[in-house]
């Protein structure tokens, strides 16, 4: 699977399969308005508190005027998430690369692109 599929289930199942037995992989499924969505990220590379407060919270509370996947993504990008660094991704390898570089990736149903949001947390070690 090279490009992201239109179906959320297909994308999520494929990426879940890649991360089988990796306990630092986080996948959270939820609804954005009426559109099923999934947020993918790696534990430890991003701050969970930040994700809850600045991504999940606004997304789940947002009043989305449409039930189309692509339009929802555009609406989120322009009106819901206020992160400076946002980009649309269309291939699985881009999604994986961004996830492992400390970004949270949002996948929506009926939408072959994903939104990555800069939620890089500074990792403190030692």
């Amino acid at each position, binding site marked *: 699977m090279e490009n992201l599929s239109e179906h959320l289930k297909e994308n999520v199942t494929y990426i879940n399969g*890649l*991360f*089988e*037995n*990796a*306990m*630092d992989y986080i996948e959270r499924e939820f609804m954005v308005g009426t559109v099923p969505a999934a947020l993918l990220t*790696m*534990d*430890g*590379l991003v701050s969970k508190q930040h994700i809850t407060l600045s991504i999940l919270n606004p997304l789940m509370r947002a009043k989305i005027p449409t039930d189309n996947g692509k339009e929802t993504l555009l609406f989120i990008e322009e009106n819901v998430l206020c992160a400076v660094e946002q980009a649309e991704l269309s291939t699985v390898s881009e999604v*994986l*690369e961004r996830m*492992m*570089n400390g970004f949270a990736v949002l996948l929506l149903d009926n939408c072959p692109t994903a939104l990555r949001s800069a939620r890089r947390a500074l*990792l*403190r*070690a*030692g």
Partner: protein
Amino acid sequence: MQRGPREGFVETYQTNISLLRRRLKTTELKFEKVTVGEESQTPAALCYLKNIADPKIINTLKKRLSACNLKDVLAAGYLAGYLERPAIFDRVGFTERPDTLCGKLHEGRIGLLIDGTPTALYVPYLFVENFQTADDYANRPFYATFTRWLKYIAFFLAIFLPGLYVGIAAHDPELLPETLLVTIAQAERSTPFPVMLEAILLYFMYELMREAGLRVPKPLGSSVGIVGGLVIGETAVSAGLVSAPSLVVIAVTVITGYTVPKLYEPMAVLRLIFILVGGIWGVWGVLAGFTFLLFELCGKTSFSVPFLAPVAPFRLSAMRDVLVRAGWKRLVRHNASVQHMPGAGKGEKHL
């Protein structure tokens, strides 16, 4: 000079997981959660690269961990005895460096990150790894080769020098050149103890000082050094209690021991044994002891990989990271997976 990263593991194992993930951005890197300790319920993470690691070794490790009946696991060292049978040399690796562990995972080894301890365990662990450091791979190949040989020589000196000295001085003085023999004989004539007792006493004094220096608070550390250096070293010789050659031999032995810190524990015990063996049976005793040591090394396996591989069983191509440290262009061409070492997987012995 240290050229590698300065990052180290911390006590929280989730942080350690992310330290590894930041270095290995691949979906092949797996972390499996396991719990150890009946009462402490300490979380730990098995980590390995799925496309490289041998599933048999992973399963054996899981089996041995589940057979562990410890109540509390407060440090990584608690588990080592459950992963491999006790022996003189460690067959479980320890590291505090994420870059080292990443390198080990690339060679098919399995890491174990335990919560509450900044030390990660990894298996299988081979004897040659004691002489390989992460800095070897960051430094230039010719210098890394030089330091590696320095460490091999230091290892042999650290174990055999005092035993050979005692053996030759007490039983086979004809092996020494005349001037050296006269120097040692003159020094020994004025001291009250036989050379074996002298060596054991000096070594015992050194170990006492080492232990004291390790345990006392930092401000007192310098006084341990002064007492050790001046009183024991200088005055003991001038008072005629010990001979200067014995002191030099023990000092050289101790210094050489520091060059291979991973082997400090077995070396500390082995050199004492060799002093005794050399003092009682002379050079032949030391040689017999060396033979037994070889038996011990050759007879052991670590997770069904021969402990002495790739030296015995021998593989010429693997020598590029044993006898020398070849340049990276040559190293990457070589399959260094631990399960493909010569003799691996034969005669499996499990706990």
